[in-house]
């Protein structure tokens, strides 16, 4: 049963015409409201993950649930389909279960709040926001266990639940949830902050509706969606070919010694519609690297990416959704069946952007970017300090943005919008550690006409015994380069024990014991290069060498030879470049640094790690997939759970 909307004074809205100016004003005001949501949340949240690194996303949708302003697209349609209850004035929904909202959020650390906005007895819009909680219980601090086999190990799972009813907080319910978290004061504050941000959006929406009239406001949101659809239709027609494009990339391993996992996607256009098909993607993993990808969210990724690459002037919203069709086979890494574990989905989530880039760019090489920092690697450190107080850090790593047709990739930055690093002085004053090294890794960015950004090296000196967990990737496969650009350098984690031994840590590991004075180098990967490195102005290469971002030896990858004083040796450079160009011939469009087989063969020698084994898939999943192929795809049974009865 889909959700039932209860309005005290239901009346239909009237679609009215309006001048383009009013429309632009309302669009502007909606954007302002969306940014105000961020501002309120950042200022009042407590966990560094939200307030410093900004791991959160807001949205305002029209009354049908289509996103008008926001980031990741709307999930409300899926939510309404799956939720068997009422949506009433004064409700605020909380959910953390990806399986109950068709993947609107993709692991249970993300707390999603949804508020229907009512005005004068009828529904006029929705506001929603989710934020990543540092801990939601489960088997490991941080609630992101790589080795989890089921979602039940990953913390407290909340189905869509009315946490506010008639604007009254269901305190018992909230207390129950908090009781299952290791850092309840952070969760409580972050929860309050999310509520405050959503209430801000509600206030703005009602103000706008009052200012322009309900019918104008309603019609304006519709028209904004349509305007976007018209713009995107033109964009799709000019950039997506009707011939099939195809691209694949990988998540290197699953934390259990198996990998890599293939993500495969085909794309083609039929008329004004673009179709994406993930057929051929590997089955779901038995560990927690699965990423429950919501089709609508993928459309948004794709739309936004196209807008950014081809025409950043377009404002994005859900309007163009009808122009895209996405097929993700059930039981795969991107649409796992419950109760598959999901917590470490960050790698597959990030990799989707590399896949998108490769897919959209191969038909338009002038707009093709290298593979980027397609991940947000996690680092966790926890334990009891000298005074017996529990400390628990969750931090996100930063790395190399790829070279792109528009310029170099920044060094040690983030692929995700609004993410920022946590100041090291903040870390040192609140956690028992010192950051001894905080610099980008020379030559780790792929060489190219536009250089890939360097990966980041962070040296954590631990001051208390404790445990660390690491979730990283791209240690086996390379961040690939494009149109002549070379791949970036891969990631590694080296632990220098206080007793002098050195350990080469796995890319994904949980609960590694550390002692005071152990030093961990967490080295992320660089971005792929873009364009022919032999054509990069030699002066710019020399500039990077002087800056310490590229080494004298690394400059040779550009065919640039430097004198002792680091100025360009024109003659030697000219000769070397000519020689290299001849030896290389016409550069390939993609440089993956070798096939998977080759990478595996070289693995031990180059990385110090055994190559991952061929993944074993679960027979109940693969058997199911065969059946699905034969019959029509079955809709996953909606959760039959009634609305929360906490009161």
């Amino acid at each position: 049963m889909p959700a039932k909307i209860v309005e005290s004074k239901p009346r239909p809205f009237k679609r009215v015409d309006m001048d383009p100016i009013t429309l632009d004003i309302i669009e502007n005001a909606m954007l302002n409201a969306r940014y105000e949501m961020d501002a309120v949340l950042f200022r009042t949240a407590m966990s560094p993950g939200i307030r410093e690194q900004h791991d959160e996303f807001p949205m305002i949708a029209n009354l049908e649930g289509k996103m008008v302003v926001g980031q990741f697209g709307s999930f409300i349609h899926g939510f309404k389909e799956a939720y068997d209850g009422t949506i009433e004035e004064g409700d605020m929904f909380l959910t953390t279960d990806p399986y109950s909202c068709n993947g609107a959020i993709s692991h249970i650390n993300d707390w999603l709040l949804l508020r229907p906005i009512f005005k004068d007895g009828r529904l006029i819009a929705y506001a929603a926001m989710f934020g990543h909680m540092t801990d939601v219980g489960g088997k490991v601090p941080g609630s992101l266990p790589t080795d989890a086999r089921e979602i039940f190990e990953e913390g407290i799972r909340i189905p869509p639940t009315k946490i506010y009813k008639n604007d009254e907080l269901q305190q018992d319910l909230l207390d129950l949830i908090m009781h299952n978290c290791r850092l309840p004061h952070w969760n409580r504050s972050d929860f309050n902050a999310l509520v405050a941000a959503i209430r801000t959006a509600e206030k703005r929406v009602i103000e706008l509706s009052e200012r322009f009239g309900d019918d104008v406001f309603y019609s304006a949101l519709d028209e904004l969606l349509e305007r976007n659809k018209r713009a995107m239709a033109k964009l799709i027609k000019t950039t997506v070919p009707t011939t099939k494009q195809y691209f694949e990339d990988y998540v290197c391993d699953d934390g259990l010694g198996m990998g890599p996992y293939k993500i495969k996607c085909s794309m083609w256009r039929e008329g004004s519609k673009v179709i994406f098909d993930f057929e051929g993607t590997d089955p779901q993993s038995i560990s927690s690297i699965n990423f429950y990808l919501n089709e609508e969210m993928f459309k948004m990724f794709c739309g936004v990416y196209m807008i950014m690459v081809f025409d950043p002037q377009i404002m994005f919203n859900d309007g163009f959704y009808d122009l895209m069709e996405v097929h993700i086979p059930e039981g795969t890494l991107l649409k796992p069946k419950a109760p598959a574990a999901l917590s470490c989905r960050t790698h597959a989530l990030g990799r989707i952007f590399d896949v998108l880039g490769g897919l959209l760019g191969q038909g338009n090489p002038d707009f093709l970017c290298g593979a980027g920092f397609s991940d947000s690697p996690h680092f966790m450190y926890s334990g009891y300090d000298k005074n017996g107080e529990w400390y628990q850090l969750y931090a996100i790593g930063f790395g190399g943005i790829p070279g792109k047709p528009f310029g170099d990739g920044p060094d040690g930055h983030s692929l995700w919008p609004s993410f920022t690093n946590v100041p090291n002085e903040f870390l040192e004053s609140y956690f028992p550690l010192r950051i001894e090294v905080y610099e980008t890794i020379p030559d780790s960015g792929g060489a190219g006409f536009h250089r890939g950004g360097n990966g980041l090296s962070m040296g954590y000196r631990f001051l208390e015994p404790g445990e660390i967990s690491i979730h990283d990737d791209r240690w086996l496969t390379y961040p690939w380069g494009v149109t002549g650009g070379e791949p970036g350098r891969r990631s590694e984690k080296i632990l220098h024990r206080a007793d002098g031994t050195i350990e080469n840590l796995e890319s994904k590991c949980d609960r590694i014991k550390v002692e005071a004075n152990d030093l961990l180098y967490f080295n992320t990967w660089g971005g792929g290069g873009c364009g022919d490195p032999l054509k990069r102005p030699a002066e710019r290469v020399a500039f990077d060498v002087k800056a310490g971002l590229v080494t004298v030896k690394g400059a040779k990858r550009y065919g640039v030879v430097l004198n002792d004083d680091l100025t360009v040796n024109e003659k030697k450079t000219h000769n070397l470049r000519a020689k290299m160009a001849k030896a290389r011939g016409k550069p390939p469009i993609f440089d993956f640094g070798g096939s998977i087989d080759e990478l595996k063969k070289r693995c031990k020698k180059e990385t110090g790690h055994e190559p991952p084994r061929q993944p074993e898939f679960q027979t109940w999943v693969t058997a199911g997939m065969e059946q699905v192929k034969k019959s029509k795809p079955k809709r996953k049974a909606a959760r039959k759970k009634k609305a929360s009865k906490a009161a």
Partner: protein
Amino acid sequence: MSYRLGVDVGGTFTDLLLVDESSNQTFTAKVPSTPDDSSIGVLNGIERVCANAGIKPEAITHVMHGTTVATNTVLTGTGAKVGLVTTKGYKQVLQIARSFVPGGLGGWVIYNKSDPLAPLSCTVEADERMGADGKVVRPLKKGALADELKALKNENIEALTVSLINSYANGANEKEVAKIARKALPGVPVSLSSDVVPEMQEYERTITTVANSYVRPKVANYVRNLQRKLKRMMKDVQLHILRSDGGMASSKVAEAYPVNLLMSGPAGGVSGAVWIARQAGFENLLTFDMGGTSTDVALVQDGKAQLRRETTVGDVTVRASSVDVRTVGAGGGSIAHVPELTGALRVGPESAGAEPGPAAYNKGGEAPTVTDANVVLGFLPTEVRLGGDMEVRKDLAEKAIEPVAKALGLSVEQAAAGIIDIVNENMYGALRLVSVEKGYDPRDFALIGFGGAGPLHANALGKLMNSWPVIIPPGPGVLCAYGDATTRVRDEASRTFIKRFRDTSVKEVAGIFDKLAAQAEKTLEKEGVAKKDRSTTYQVDIRYHGQGLLLTVDFELKDLKRKGFKVIGDQFDEMHRQLFTFALESDKELVNLRAVAQGREASIAAGKLSRGSKKPLASAKLGSTKVFVDGRRQQADLYDRSRLKAGNEIAGPAIVLEMDSTTVILPGHVGKVDATGNILITPQA
């Protein structure tokens, strides 16, 4: 007899305001600016204003000046070559910055990051380490650093910045570095982060200190040059520079900490607006300063401008207090366009600037600007010209706007009205940022419009905000000079002190405040402010333990000593509730402690306008023109502002002209001239 002088150097005019300190009488002068060396214009102006007052320049004892030199140095990228010393392992602190990529999802595709303000090739590492607790973990290796610094000589750096990890907790190692640097690089000015901004967060502290070094040589040159020329004319004169936070600094202090001058210009406007509004009887106001390329807005409560602990100029954001001015890229020169894919009307942020300027000015500009829209609508009448020699061509404005009209399927006039609505909406967004979004109700505030284009748009903004009256002060340039002349000498001393209430004591905290107060007052003493004229206020930046935000709470030190932390805590809870709708039970945490010392407020008398009747003199009326407003053409009267008398009332639609600004009074509104010459616009009763 002593006089003080306020000087505002604008792009076109230099305005001066002379105040007789014994009688509080004022004199003004306006002379053309001299952009190549603005001191020439200033000196010309001084001669003029002294002649007006019938005094000799020697009678002037204080010159108060707001300057945009620091701002322009950053905006044009013409600052010094700065060397940087960091802790080992942190050489790339500016290169990495906060790892932030602007522009939303996929924003990295088009984001190109600029090179750091201090080049990496001029950055060296010091082998040393301070702990977060302020204890030395590893002492400085001096010899190695000296060698590195000597090598920097070849880079010809013009200034050096030292910013070491955790120096906010203990600056001892930075001082050691400074000693070595002075020997290794004689003559190169050194800025220490623990001195410029002793606050947590290595990137912010470093960029702030580097910015200080970056603008320092230019500012110092400018200030010294002006000082020297002033001294030639007036032997005992003291030059003061307006700081971003609206306080005055001596020329010496301004030279050493020019990072505090980045918002000197806008701060002058806000200070002037505060003073003018107070004369008109308004203490709560929104300031609206609209120029050619951008608009600055700020909120003033109880006669005090809101401050914030951050200043942004171009893509540089530093930790320095400034009047909380929000800037939007919307001004008279903003260009309207209709992107092909969406067919939406966008205005700005691209601007036609002064060159080639709006199409109507016939200086080669062809793009449709906000000014052109104002010309098409009749708000900038072509019939009458006062002063200046700018010719306004309506035909060219229409031609420029035509393509926009075509793309939107509207008439030229409708399109022009649309451009004005959109640009007003952009500015409305900025005004909301400083008011509604901070929990203030704009209906409790008057709106004061100034700057070249402010008086044209202020009435419309008043309507959007519901902020009345809309105050249009006479002469936008003099307003800034008023700001310069009336601000107080100010200095602040601060320290990061991160402790929960329960981990410290009132005694410890009060002790630190006493020290900070002494430090700030010492600056005032050096500036010759007598003890009886000094006052000190206290502030603390505070948050719930674990939170990222900081709210600044003002309090009386004696209350803290008597009643304890509750004095601060309760006020913080209340502010948190006002801003975010909730307060928390969590522990509260002190972060920054600050003492602010100020000199006496200047008292000057506002110019009095002679009284007239309700109806303006016939000679004040210059004629009438057609304006397009509310979707139709209407007859509007034109007035000469210099002939208006106190008590005059002008019903809209009407346009009031003066030499450097034009005021629009919309239909359904009435403008009343008050005793000091302001026009107060309100909706018709």
